[in-house]
Structure formats: C-alpha cells, structure tokens
C-alpha cells in the first residue's frame, strides 16, 4: 500500500494531523520563522502537523523558558541540605530524621482569568501532582493571589471564583490550605495572578525522579482519561480539525479533585513497592512534555502506541492526544515484570492503567496511531536545541529618596491608621481563608495569619518530650518595591520571606519562586526580570536559602499594559519543637520590643510605602534599602531568643510600618499599649512628619517581639550587640497611646480590619 491509501484508512482528522506542515501552520502555533526553519533542518524533514505541534509546545515559553533560562541559571541552587534543586517536578530538601520536604510553586494566571473556579482549582491540582510525583505526601497548600482594583466590578467575581476554586480542590482532596497572600492593584485588572504552592513530605531515600531508565522497560499511562480539553494554544482548534465546528473546543480544563485524590493515593501506594523506576505528571503540554522530558533526561528514546491511550472521546487524533491538557494523569516507567502488581493497585482505586509503549535507546520519540507512524523525531532538537534568547534589557530604578518632610498632610496618626486598615491590601483576609479547610489532616498549628508563616507539625517526628518538628511556610512579594527598583525588590521579597519564617520560630531553609512579569520583549520588562533575579540571587545566597524549584509566567499583560513585576518567593523553614512556634498575637503583660531599631531611629523610610501612597495617592520614590547583614542579624537573634523560650509572639515590620504591625499584634487578645517614643519625638504633635514616618515608615530588617521576661531578653540582646527599642508593656485597655499625642481605640481599627474584605465582597456580616 502506498502512503496515501494507507492514510485514507485513518479518519479525516487523523489524516490532517499527519499531513506535512507549512510555515503558516508554525506561525499560527506561535513559532517564529527562524524556529520553524531550525526545526526542519534539525530533524532533516518537514514535520507533520503532530510533530510540529509537539515542537511548538516544547518551544513555548512555558516549557522552554527561552526568555528566562539564561537568567535562571544564575540563581543559587546548592547547599548541603539540598537534595534536588530546579529541574525536577519539585525541589527537595533534607529536614533531618531521614525526612525530606518537597515543594514547588506554580502559576495558573491566564486560565484563572478566563474561568476563575476551574482555573484556580486545576492550578492547585497541578501543583499537588508535581509534589506527589516525587514520592511525597502533600501536607500543605499555599497560594499567592493578585487581583485588580477592588472597585472594579470584575474583581469581585474573580476573587469569589478563585477562592472557591482553590478551596474546591484543596478541601476536597483533603490537604489543608494553610496560608498565602492576596493583594489588589489596578495593574492586575486584566490579568490576575494565581500562584499555588504545595509542600509535601517524603522519606529522604524514597524520592522519585522523572528520568527514564532502561531500554525495553514499559511506559505506563495512569489516571484519568484523555479528552479534548485545553489543547495547546489557539493553534489547531480551527475549523478543519473539528467535525463539529459550531462549538469551539474548550481551552479551560476542568479539575476533578476526586480523581486527583484517587491518583494521589494510588501513586503513593505503588511507590511503596519497588515497581516504579521513574514517574512524571502530565502538566502543561500533557503527554508531549512528560514523554519528551522523561526520555531526554534519561538520554533515551520512547516509542508509544497512541491507540492504547485511554481517551474520553471518540476519534481523537494523534495531535489531540499529544497536546491535550486533561488533568489527573501520570506517566511512569515500571520495572519489567511488575505491571500486574501495579495494575491491581490502580484497579483498586478505579483508575485507568495502560501500558502504552516502551523505553528505547534511539533517542527518538516515535508515535504510532491506527497502526501508522504519527511521529518520528529525534529528541535532541526538542530539548537541547530549544531556543534560548538573550533579550535586551534595561533595569530602570527610581532613585528619588523621599524625605518625611516631603509628605505634608492634615491627617492625624489615628486617621492614617484607619485608612490603612480599610485598605484591602492590609485588612484581614479572613473572608477568604475561612473558605479553605486549614485544619484537615490534624497537623496544622498556625494557619492564615495566626503567625507570620504558617506552621504544620511534621507527622511522625513526635518524641516523648515534644510534639515533634514543625515546617514553616510563607509566600511573599512587594511588587511596588520591585517596580521601583527590581534589584532591591527582589532582595526584599527574599528577606521578608526569611523574616516571616523566623518570626514563626523556624530557621529559613530554601526557596521556590514564581516569576510573574509582562512581555519580555519589552526592554524594561526584561529589565525587571533580570533585576529581580539578580536581587533574589544576592539575598538568597547571603541568607543561605537556595532556590530549589520555581516557575516563570510571562506575557501577563492586557492591551499592552504589563502587571506590576511580581516575583513571588515561597520559602520554607523548619523548627525542632513545634510547640515553640510563635504567633503574631501578644498576650497580656508582655513587653514589646523592636529588634533592629534603636533610640536614634527617628526618621522612617517613607518612599514607596503605604503611608506615602495615602498622602500622595500614588506610589513614588525609591523603596527602603536592604542591608543583608542586618537582616541576617535580626533573624539569628530572634531564633536564639526563641530557643531560650523567652518569646511569646513575633511579627515582622512590613507593609504599613511599625504601628500597623503593633496593632496586628494587639487585635486578637483585645490588648492595648502605651508606646514609648524616641526622646526627640515625644514633644511632637500628631501631624509631625518625622513622628509619622517613625510610625509608618517601611524600613526593613525589623521584627517586633513580645516577651514576659524583658530582663533576660535585654541581656541577650546587649551581649550580641543587637539594636533594639522597647515599645512598652501590653495592657487590657484596647487603646494605643502615643504619650500625650494621641489615643487610638483599637476596637474601631479591628472593626475596619475585619469588615473591609466582607464589605468589598458584598457580604453582610
């Protein structure tokens, strides 16, 4: 039979999928002309449509990191406690006791804007798979969210949908969502950010990797069936590919947390045997990226029979099967002979299990469908020759240093505090996190703002005299600082994350990061990317918190307007005794002390602060500078004090400055405080710019601690040469007193703090 008549036996769509491609097809799939020519040259033929689809997926920004790779390589990734850095499904670090923490953050920004519920739900599902693929049981979820202006009608709809979606998946699969961050800014009006992070726990010597091994070994498909959902890009969804062209193919996938749960349990059960040689989840670009990555990492090849892939719909073409992004699927290589045992586990969990091919030593990806070749290409060009660009960049920084006296106002300190707690960026996010199950699994110690970092107990490390170890998790980024100075902003995100981890009582250990930016073809956006990576690298290497995993999300813009640069830092830390974890809420008769600030501190940094924005209605000026030595010093001293069991609470000073932080420490237990002021400020009035900058400046490297034992604390601080300032002792008045300058009722502020988001969401409380 000649090729033509062979092809006629296949269905019409399959025929199209196997037809030779043209340059226009490549352009439509988002490849450039140069990239297309490179492909033709490297594979020594004109690719058919399926082959081209596979290239376009692998060369996409999402899979190839072509704009950011050059810079990602500069991140510090090594340390003695790193078991696996970037390059696998998730990063792995050693946390002692033969245990490893496995974690990663990932964005689902565009799908969540289109369909907030499913977009965010599948984001959570996807990041969980990245973690349990490595053999870890997920124990905590976090999320970093950025929405448009609160008064935009769409914002409410998006917040409500995203929050429901995150809860919908996390709650259902039974993994606690323990924290995250939510911010609002008009730059996200047309492009929200939904970054989900998962943390899992594994035995240190039972980590699973994705590199394929052993030619001849069986390749197994498990999980849900493949459907036509989320097929890559706008590309082939054109009329000639659908019989029924009245309905456009959905580009949004639907998450199925129930199947996700079954897959999680089945995979972990199988991993308890010795059957699994390598495993990879099917995330972005589905079967394409999983098969290509597994084969190429193992310097091997793969031969798959697509007729054996379980499909949900009739007559799916090789193109569709390879590019579908249906959820809850995995690809594994099993030890030969263990197929039956493995299958019985997946049968038990009611999941599909299919041997779809084998590992080869050809270094080629060979696919057959309906008995014919659907694809036969060398792997090297897909991965090794994937484009890597050195795009032009310019790091723009705002060097203007604003002085307190530049900010004139007729607002009193009380007025300003009131405005701050009415700001949705500062106000309590309880409306959001009450919709997340934060206590399932029973190991959550502090979730959602109880503490600067969320703390979960590490199951199985209990000792006679202790509840065992704890893991602390946080996500942080202050985009306005990054916008104003990408390098400082990048450093600040790392430092704030480390301070948060320390304030919960844990030692900062390692980072996962999510780099969310606009269009990298713009010289200043590329500058933001390069600058933040530079800043993150500097701070991370200084603080000894290497980057072990991450994700890059570019082209976050609408109508040519980019989002604020948002390099989110997810950090984890560990503590030996979880009962020593610290919350932010002070108790009665505690002395509050600022670490990292002394009596000579009389003028706070106002540039780029919330305070400055309140006065000028627009952020301006250079962000607070970062001194890494100071950051390290406050973190170390805090951990030392906590080890001596001298602390009852801790909270780092960040957005909104000192007074905001103090209020947050007093709210929960209805406390009050008579605040000491530096002697030069005691005679000011409430409008005094210096005093206001002292109250609201956002200088870094400061943490407020609470103690019952001021004497011992002072002793340790003096001995270690640490700057500190004693703020005063908490009382039961619910008032914040600034000498005779101002008395502020905390009840009113607490009310604003709690009502702001529900009011915005239109919920009567």
């Amino acid at each position, binding site marked *: 039979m000649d090729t033509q008549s062979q092809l006629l036996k296949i269905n019409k769509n399959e025929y199209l999928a196997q037809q030779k491609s043209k340059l226009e097809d490549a352009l439509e799939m988002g490849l450039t002309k140069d990239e297309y020519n490179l492909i033709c040259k490297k594979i020594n033929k004109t690719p058919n449509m399926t082959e081209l689809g596979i290239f376009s997926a692998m060369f996409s920004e999402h899979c190839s990191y072509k704009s950011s790779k050059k810079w990602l390589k500069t991140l510090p990734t090594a340390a003695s406690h790193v078991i696996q850095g970037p390059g696998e499904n998730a990063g792995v670090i050693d946390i002692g006791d033969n245990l490893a923490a496995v974690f990663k953050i990932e964005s689902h920004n565009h799908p969540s804007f289109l369909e907030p519920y*499913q977009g965010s739900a599948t984001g959570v599902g996807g990041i969980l798979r990245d973690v349990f693929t490595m053999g870890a049981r997920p124990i905590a979820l976090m999320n970093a969210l950025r929405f448009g202006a609160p008064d935009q009608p769409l914002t409410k709809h998006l917040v409500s949908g995203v929050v429901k979606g995150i809860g919908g998946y996390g709650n259902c699969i039974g993994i606690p969502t323990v924290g995250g961050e939510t911010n609002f800014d008009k730059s996200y009006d047309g492009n929200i950010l939904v970054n989900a992070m998962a943390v899992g726990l594994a035995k240190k010597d039972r980590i699973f990797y994705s590199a394929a091994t052993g030619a001849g070994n069986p390749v197994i498909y498990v999980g*849900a069936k493949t459907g*036509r*959902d989320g097929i890559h890009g706008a590309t082939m969804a054109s009329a000639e590919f659908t019989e029924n062209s009245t309905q456009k*193919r959905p580009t949004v996938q*639907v998450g*199925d947390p129930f*199947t996700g749960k079954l897959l999680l349990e089945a995979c972990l059960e199988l991993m308890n045997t010795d059957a699994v040689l390598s495993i990879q989840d099917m995330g972005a670009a589905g079967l394409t990226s999983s098969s290509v990555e597994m084969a190429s990492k193992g310097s091997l090849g793969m031969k798959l029979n697509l007729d054996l892939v379980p499909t949900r719909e009739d007559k799916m073409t090789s193109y569709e099967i390879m590019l579908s992004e249906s*959820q809850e699927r995995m690809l594994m290589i099993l030890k030969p002979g263990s197929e039956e045992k493995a299958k019985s586990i997946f049968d038990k969990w009611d999941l599909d299990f299919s041997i779809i091919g084998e590992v080869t030593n050809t270094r080629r990806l060979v696919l057959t469908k309906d008995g014919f070749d659907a694809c036969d290409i060398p792997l090297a060009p897909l991965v090794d020759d994937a484009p890597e660009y050195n795009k032009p960049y310019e790091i723009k920084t705002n060097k203007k240093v604003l002085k307190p006296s530049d900010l004139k106002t007729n607002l009193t300190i009380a007025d300003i505090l009131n405005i701050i707690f009415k700001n949705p960026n500062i106000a309590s996010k309880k409306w959001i996190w009450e919709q997340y199950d934060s206590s399932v699994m029973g190991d959550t110690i502090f979730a959602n703002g109880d503490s600067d970092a969320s703390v979960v107990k590490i199951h199985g490390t209990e000792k006679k005299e202790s509840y065992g170890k704890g893991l602390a998790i946080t996500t942080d980024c202050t985009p306005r600082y990054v916008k104003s100075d990408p390098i400082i902003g990048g450093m600040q995100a790392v430092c704030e994350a480390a301070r948060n981890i320390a304030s919960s009582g844990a030692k900062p250990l390692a980072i996962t990061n999510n780099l969310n930016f606009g269009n990298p073809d713009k010289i200043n956006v590329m500058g933001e990317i390069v600058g933040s990576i530079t800043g993150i690298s500097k701070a991370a290497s200084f603080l000894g918190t290497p980057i072990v995993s991450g994700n890059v999300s570019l082209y976050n813009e609408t109508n040519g307007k980019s989002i604020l640069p948002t390099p989110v830092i997810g950090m984890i830390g560990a503590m030996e005794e979880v009962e020593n974890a610290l919350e932010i809420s002070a108790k009665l008769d505690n002395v509050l002390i600022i670490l990292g600030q002394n009596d000579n501190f009389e003028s706070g940094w106002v540039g780029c602060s919330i305070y400055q924005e309140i006065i000028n209605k627009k952020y301006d000026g250079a962000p607070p500078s970062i001194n890494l030595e100071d950051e390290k010093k406050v973190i170390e001293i805090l951990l030392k004090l906590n080890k001596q069991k001298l602390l009852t609470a801790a909270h780092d000073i960040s957005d909104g400055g000192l007074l905001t932080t103090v209020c947050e420490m007093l709210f929960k237990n209805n406390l009050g405080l008579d605040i000491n002021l530096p002697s030069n400020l005691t005679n000011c009035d409430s409008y005094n710019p210096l005093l206001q900058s002292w109250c609201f400046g956002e200088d870094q490297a400061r943490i407020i601690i609470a103690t019952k034992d001021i004497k011992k604390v002072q002793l340790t601080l003096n001995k270690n040469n640490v700057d500190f300032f004693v703020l005063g002792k908490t009382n039961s008045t619910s008032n914040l007193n600034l000498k005779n300058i101002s008395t502020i009722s905390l009840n009113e502020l607490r009310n604003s703090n709690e009502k702001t988001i529900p009011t915005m969401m239109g919920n009567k409380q």
Partner: protein
Amino acid sequence: MKVIVNVSLKEGVLDPEGQAIRSSLNNLGFEHCSDVKTGKQIILNFNQNSEAEVLTQAKRMCEELLVNTVIENYEISILKD
C-alpha cells in the same frame, strides 16, 4: 411569566460529577446506564408580560451572570402553565 434556563457543559468539557454518578449507578446494578451528564436548571420568575422582552432579558442574564460561557451552554424556554 416563568422562564426556564437549562445550563449544560459544552461538548468535550469533563463532567466528573456525571462520571461519578454513572459509576455509582452501575454499581447499584443499573448496568444499562451508559453515560450521565449533569447540568443546572434555573427557573426565573418575571413580573413582566411581554414574551419577547422576557426572552431578551433572560438571554442577557445568562451571558452576564448565570452561565459560564467558557465551558457551559444554555437553553432558554418559556414555561407555560
């Protein structure tokens, strides 16, 4: 006047709920049930009488709130009683 809006998932969109129900029905012995799809029904009551007007309103409601047109289809019909 009453209007019924039937909302269903678009062709090709995963319906995990339908799948779970089908498998449960099969387990209960209803082996002739080969597929289940789930949808929503929304019944709107209008204090207005022009059929044409009510239908345009209902259509706008679907597009603006009731239906997630990225993954769902809808059908509108007037309920005669």
